[in-house]
Each structure stands twice: as structure tokens, then as C-alpha cells.
């Protein structure tokens, strides 16, 4: 099916009728997913959003429950099941949602807050046409033109967007848009990254054996210990839980946390299993490239290149991968 680009606003209006639709846009000079306001431009081309859409499903601050203190305690869970659509999400970010699904929905417990949002979100993905010089998703085993876990996959067909439903949810979307769609449409699906990284299939296991390798002394030193890489990363999912009191009432919330922070693993008594940035950066790289793979069978790095682009110290995970592949 195909949708004329001129009909895009019409299509979004249909989607926005009963859901919050998030589209790539710009706020104060930052390209990111924004709540579509009914008329603003949708920036499907160009560079990918500077911030990933992960806060739509995993908000950077998420209220969990309210409580009242006193003689008897009351606890009231906050249940939100917002109907949301993420429109124009690229394959790299789609893969990150796959990673999140593994984390929050598998291995024992199901995270209720994530699952409620996940169940009620429709993911309309867009094949990438314009990789940045820092993009390397195809080296990480992704196809920049396709996102298998999308509800609807879109690709650029010149004047049109070529749509294909992958799921029941996706089919429902196409049905809703039926009036604007026409049959056919041929999209170019030949996008490839210019940055090629030597991510060998053996690397996860190889890295597992490199825990004490001197390479870590070298690649971790430029780090300044900020959370930029983790907060712009579409797959980083670590969080903290804290409370906000107001007199006898309060809210428990969770918020993003970063394994790069110096107090992340420090315990009450002062002991810290990861006391310096060497351990922290090592843990992050290992988590992205080895630990996660061991636990869930896929990389936690999707090759979006955001951390490469944004790192204040210009550290580069791709350089590390290449280096590690060589040792």
C-alpha cells in the first residue's frame, strides 16, 4: 500500500483521533520525537532524531504509586495505559524496543509499567534513507531498510510512503487509513551505512574473556563520567527508584539512571564494586556487546551512533569494537 506524502497530515489526523501520535520534529533546535499537534511538519528524512523515542515507553521520570503515611499506610498504584503511536521510528530504534521488550517482559518478572505502555503502542517504522556518518546499524546486524518488529513498516517511495503491515495492530492501522491509501508502490530499500565496523559474531564471547585485558585502561580514560551516552542511547534501560514526599503524602517514582555515574553502584557502607570509570565504561561496553548477548541472544547496541555523535570526550564505541576485534 502507499500513501501520498501530501496526504500525510490527513493520515496523522486519523491516527491522532484516538491516540497520542509522536512524530520526528524539532523543539528548541533538538530533533526528537514530539507529540504531533495536528499541523506541524513531520521530519521523516534527514538525520535521525538526536534523542531516541525510548521515553515514550519508558519515561525518564515515571510515577509508580502514591502513598499516604501515618498510622495506617495507603498505597495507590498509578495505572496508565495511554494509547500511543510512534510514527516514523527507524529500524535502529525499533531494534532498541526489541531489546527493551526482552528486559522488561522476560526473565521472570514482567514490568507492569512498561508492559501497559507497550501493549497500547502502535509502532509505525520508517526505513532509513539518510544514514549519518556515525551510523553503523548494518554492522550490528540490522537492516536499515526494515524493522521486523514494527506494526507497520514504511519506506520512502519518492512522492509516496510505501506501507506494509507486519502485525494485527498494523493491519488495523492500514484499515483506518484505507481511504488515503492506494495499492502498489515501490520503495527503494538499498540504504547502507557508510561506517563499517568489524563486529564479528565471535566478539561477544571474545569480550567475555577480555575482562582483565589492558585494552580497558586505554579506552576508558577519556570518559568524563557523564550520562550523555546512556541518555541518548535508545537501549540503555537502567533506572533508579526514589520517592518525593510532601508532608504526609508522597509519590514513588522511577527515573533513568546511568551506569556511568560514580554513585551508581556505591553501597550504603561505601563499598563500590565499580569504583572508577574504567570499571564503569567496561561494564557499559561489555553490557552492550557481550553480557546482554549472553543473556538475551542479541546485541544491546543497535548502531544508531548517537553516543558517538554526542560524547563530550569524543569516545567512540566503534573504535573500541574495531580495536577489540583486532586483539
Amino acid at each position, binding site marked *: 500500500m502507499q500513501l501520498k506524502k501530501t496526504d500525510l497530515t490527513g493520515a496523522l489526523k486519523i491516527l491522532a483521533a484516538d491516540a497520542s501520535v509522536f512524530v520526528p520534529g524539532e523543539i528548541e533546535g533538538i530533533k526528537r520525537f514530539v507529540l504531533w499537534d495536528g499541523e506541524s511538519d513531520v521530519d521523516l528524512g534527514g538525520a535521525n532524531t538526536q534523542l531516541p523515542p525510548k521515553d515514550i515507553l519508558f519515561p525518564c521520570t515515571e510515577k509508580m504509586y502514591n502513598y499516604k*503515611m*501515618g498510622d495506617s499506610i495507603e498505597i495507590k498504584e498509578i495505572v496508565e495505559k495511554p494509547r500511543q503511536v510512534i510514527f516514523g521510528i527507524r529500524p535502529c530504534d525499533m531494534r532498541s524496543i526489541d531489546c527493551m521488550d526482552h528486559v522488561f517482559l522476560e526473565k521472570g518478572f514482567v514490568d507492569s509499567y512498561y508492559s501497559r505502555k507497550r501493549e497500547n503502542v502502535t509502532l509505525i517504522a520508517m526505513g532509513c534513507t539518510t544514514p549519518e556518518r556515525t551510523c553503523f546499524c548494518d554492522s550490528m546486524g540490522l537492516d536499515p531498510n526494515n524493522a521486523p518488529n514494527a506494526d507497520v513498516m514504511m519506506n520512502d517511495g519518492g512522492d509516496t510512503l510505501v506501507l506494509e503491515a507486519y502485525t494485527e495492530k498494523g493491519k488495523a492501522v492500514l484499515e483506518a487509513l484505507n481511504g488515503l491509501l492506494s495499492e502498489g508502490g515501490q520503495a527503494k530499500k538499498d540504504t547502507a551505512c557508510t561506517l563499517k565496523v568489524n563486529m564479528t559474531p565471535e566478539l561477544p564471547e571474545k569480550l567475555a574473556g577480555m575482562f582483565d585485558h589492558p585494552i580497558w585502561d586505554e579506552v576508558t580514560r577519556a570518559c568524563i563520567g557523564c550520562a550523555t551516552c546512556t541518555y541518548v542511547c535508545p537501549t540503555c534501560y537502567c533506572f533508579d527508584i526514589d520517592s518525593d514526599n*510532601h*508532608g*504526609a503524602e508522597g509519590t514513588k517514582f522511577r527515573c533513568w539512571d546511568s551506569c556511568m555515574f560514580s554513585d551508581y553502584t556505591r553501597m550504603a557502607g*561505601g563499598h563500590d564494586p565499580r*569504583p*572508577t570509570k574504567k570499571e564503569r565504561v567496561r561494564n557499559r561496553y561489555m553490557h552492550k556487546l557481550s553480557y546482554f548477548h549472553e543473556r538475551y541472544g542479541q546485541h544491546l547496541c543497535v548502531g544508531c551512533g548517537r553516543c558517538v555523535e554526542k560524547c563530550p570526550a569524543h569516545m567512540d564505541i566503534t573504535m573500541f569494537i574495531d580495536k577489540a576485534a583486532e586483539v
Partner: protein
Amino acid sequence: MSRIGVFVCHCGTNIAGTVDVARVAEAMKAEPGVVFATDYKYMCSEPGQQMVKDMIKEHKLDRIVICSCTPRMHENTFRKMLKDTDVNPYMLEIANIREQCSWVHTDKEKATEKAIALARMAVAKVGRDFPLFTSTIPIHKKALVIGGGIAGIQAALDIADAGYQVTLLEREPSIGGRMVMLDKTFPTLDCSACISTPKMVEVSAHPNIELRTSCELEDVSGYVGNFEVTIRQKARYVNHDICTGCGLCETKCPTKVISEFNQGMSERRAIYKSFAQAVPAKPVIDPDHCRKLQEGKCGVCQAVCPLKAINFEDKDTTFTDTYGAIIVSTGYQLIQWQDLYPEYGGGRFKDVISGLQFERLVNASGPTEGHILRPSDQTEPKDVVIVKCVGSRDPKKGKSYCSRACCMYAAKHAHQILEKIPDSNVYVFYMDVRTPGKGYEEFYDRTRKDGANYIRGRVAKIYKEGGRLICRGEDSLLGRQVTVEADLVILETAMVPADGIGEVVHKLGIAMDADGWVQEAHPKLRPVETQTAGVYLAGTCQGPKDIPDTVAQASAAAAKVCGLFSKSEMETSPMTSKVDQSKCCGCGHCEVCCPYKAITLVEIDDREGPKKIRRTVASVNSGLCQGCGCCAAACRTGAIDLLGFTNDQILREVDALCQ
């Protein structure tokens, strides 16, 4: 969670008349941590206090909030009350619902709401109180008096007479200070030396006084009751243990030096006593002028000394002692007018002298044996001009303050001249005549009757013409220029703090005012104390004053010291600053803003990973800390905090206010 009890006082109708106290108590029951709340007629009364004690037992309370009058009134009452209970006296907060609520508001509804808010703030704060304990520090009953002028002498004698040990420190070879240089004292015209030298002798003979001359303060650490003081004994080159003060050496010494004591108007030797009645009455060698010490030649004194008391190898030594209290009595000096007043000749005219030079001139033991002879030609002056306020009350060139004693000694000088030189004329240029003191106005009147001509106005210029000094000025009463020819001009110059006061102040951690005088703790109520507990002030180091005021202040300071020494230990407030050294980065921002020098940077052993390191952190001397909390607000990281007013507590008070 804590177990807080809230007690709301009616204060008769003082509070209950405007505030619905029952509602306040009821509202507090809903606050987190509050397990008991009630109201009562008079919380401070015996039964009121008993009820608190009972409720502490009954409800196992661990923290108390009392809503009543200002904490300035009864905080201590209730703290004392808690001493007999299981609750720490510092686990108490008082909500001021009388002075700052019921008495200033009339609308009962609004006043009650405010009282609830104030109570809530106190509950929030008390929830973050933790037990604090007063500690006692022993008091070392020995005082140090810095400066052996009349102030120091008086203070030392008073303390010593009370039975306490005193060390009197003097940087010059003899005690006596300025007073012993004066000829007569106003208004009674007592001989100054006659009344001060017996006191000097008394000092040297007093069993409780250790006299330390030629000594300077090297270092001070510690706090009230326990100051560790290091004193530098300057080399004297004369062994005072052996020397009997026979004076033979002095007569044989070939080197002549300008006499400081006689204000440059006579000479002394390189080995010398400052003046005849010096205490100790033993000479020292002036190393800057001694030929043996400078050039390695001479050594006459050593040769003539019958007791072999001369030791050219003598070195500065230091010694350390512990003192419970310190009195600063470093005195004053006269302003260096020569640089400030080129229009008065800037020191080029020999016959323009300072008041202190005149004192020596008129003194029987002075360079002229009491004859007023002008320095240039040793003739008796007939026309004498006295200029007051040279450097005082002159913010442009000198000091803005009044030096307080000059009006009177100018009158005294005029009187002395008129008395000793019967046909002389004395002209006094003045701005105002200030004579607040017993018998002062009368003395001034007498001087005028004696014939002194008082001219209101400043002298603009003094120049020499034909061997005489021409003083041109203005008579502001008549509004015209006046010119007076004089043989001698006496400048009554401003008092300024003694040289080196800055170092003393710095070492003691006390403050100076803008003019360099030592800052008293409170100008009205604590005039002899400094903001450092255990350090007191006597005499002109605190500001210009005359002899009776100086002596009075010295005795006052001594009384303070004796009061302190009357106890063997003292309680210290536990509400002092405390450093969490694990957080402290040692930047020292707290150190620079502490008014008490209570914070020092120290090195501690620490670990950084596997590495053993020495790390710099701030450390609070709780004996010195007075609990202002300036440091806590300067600390970015919150490593230093003020117990009793912690960051956490104030934040919670703010939070509670806004609910």
C-alpha cells in the same frame, strides 16, 4: 519513623485568645511522626513540665515540639526539663506562636492557620534532630597578657592578685609602655612615672606573674581554656639570670644610638636599658647597632662585665605554654605625620615636634632634664603653637576618628609651658574642645585662664622664616586668616594601633575594624571581649582612650578572666559546625569565611581504591566554633553542616511551610 510529642501552650489567653490551640494540637496529630499532641494552659509551669515528662514516658516520645512563646524565652527552660527524661535536650523545637503569631495578629482563623504552619515547621525540623551532647572543656587557669603597657600591667596585676598565674608579654626590653614616657597626667598633674613605675616593680615582684620582655607572640592554637601559645624570646645577649643591672657595661659601650624612649631627642648606648626605671632593670644589646655583633669587633661590655653575663652567641628561642585566657593590650603609637602632612614641614623642621616628644622634653628625666628647650638650638621658646587633630578627624589625610586624649593633653601641654616659661605665649589651634571626664572641663578652663590662646581652626601651613616657624591658618570663628610666629610647634598627633597588631590579630583569629583597632565583640555590651571566646581586650588596642579608661578596661578584662577561671571547666554549646570528612573535598571555602579561625585544613589518611593516600579536609575546632553557620552556606557539597540548624532541617522547615 520518629515519635514526636507536640505540646501547645495557651499562655493563659496570650496565645489562646487569638489562636485556637486545640485545633493546632489536633492538626499536628496528622503530621508524620507525631504520636501525641495536646494543649495546656501554661507549658512552662511546673505542672506543664511535669505533663511533658509524663507523656514522654507514656508514649515513648523521642522528640518534643512545644508551641509557645519565643524560643529566646524558654528554650533553655525546656532543655533543662528534658535533662531528667530519656529525651535528649536537643531533640526539642519550639514554635513561636506568641510573639510571632498571637500577639501580632487579630484574625483568629488566620492566626490559627499560621500557628499550625509554624507548628508543622517545628515538627518537620524536630524530626531531623538528633541527640547532641554538651561537652565540657577544662580551663587552664593561667592567663597571657600581650603588651606590657599600663593596660597590660593593670590586667596582669588584677588577675595575679586574684590568685591566678599570669604571663605578661612585652616585645620591648622593658614594660611600661607609653604611660611611663609621659611627664604628667591630666587633669591632676600627677607625675606619670611616679604612679606607673611602682606598678611595674610590683609586676616584676609578683609571685603569680611571669614577666617576659623582649618577647613576641609566635603562634596561637587551641581555644578558650586551652590556648597553646608559642612565644619567641628575642636574643638579648645579656644573661639576665646573672646580670645584676650594675650598669657598668652601659657606661663603657662606645656605640651611641638614638634613644627611642626619648623620642629621638637623646642618645643611648648599643647595650642599654630603655630608661632609668626600666623593668627588668637589666640591659640588653641592640644587635643592629652593636659593633661586636655587626662587625665582630669591640666586645668591651663582655670584657668589663664582672659577672660574665654578656653572651654574643645568644639566639632567639621559643617556648610554648598553655593559657586559659588571653588579654590583648598591645596599645597604640602615634601616627607617622611626617608623610601625611608635608605642609607642616614633613619632619624637616626640628622644632615641629609631636606631643610625645614634648612629654619627654618637659620631663625631668628627659633629654633636657625638664627644661623646655627647642630641639634646634636648645633655647627656650617664647611663642609656642599647639596644633590639635593632626591626623585625627581628618579622613582625607589621616583618620576619621577622634583620638580622644589629645584635647586634654594639649591643654596639659599649654599649661606646662605657661607654668615653666612664665612670659611665653601659647596658641592652640583646635577644631573642637572635647572634655568629657571627671575634672576635665575644669582643667581646660584653668588652662585658658592661665593664658592659653585657643584659636578655632586648622593650621594650613607651617614654614620657616628667619629662624622662626610661621603657622598660617584660619580662625573659623572670626572667619579670617591668622598667622602666628612660633619658636616651637607641638603637633598633637592621632593615635593609631601599634605596629604589628595585624599579626597578633591574625594569630589570635580575632578581627580588626577598618582603622586597624581590634574589634570588640559588641560595641555596647561586650566591649572588652572579642568574638573569640577567651580572648579579651584592654586599653588602646581597641581604640583611642585615656589612662583612666584604659585602666578601667584592663580591670574589666581581668574580671572577665577571673570569672572564667573561677570554674574548673566550662560547658560548650554542641550546636557547632561539623565536617563530614568523607564528603569534604578540602577546597577551604569554609575556612576563609570563618570569623573565629575555627576551621583548619588538615591532612587525613584515606584510601582511594587500593591506594593509601593523604587527603586534605576541613576540620572544625568545636571549642572555637560559635555556631554561626557561615561555613555551612559556603560549602557547595554540604560536607560542613551546622548541628541544630542542618541543611536537612532547614530544607524540611521550608518544605513544611509550603504545604
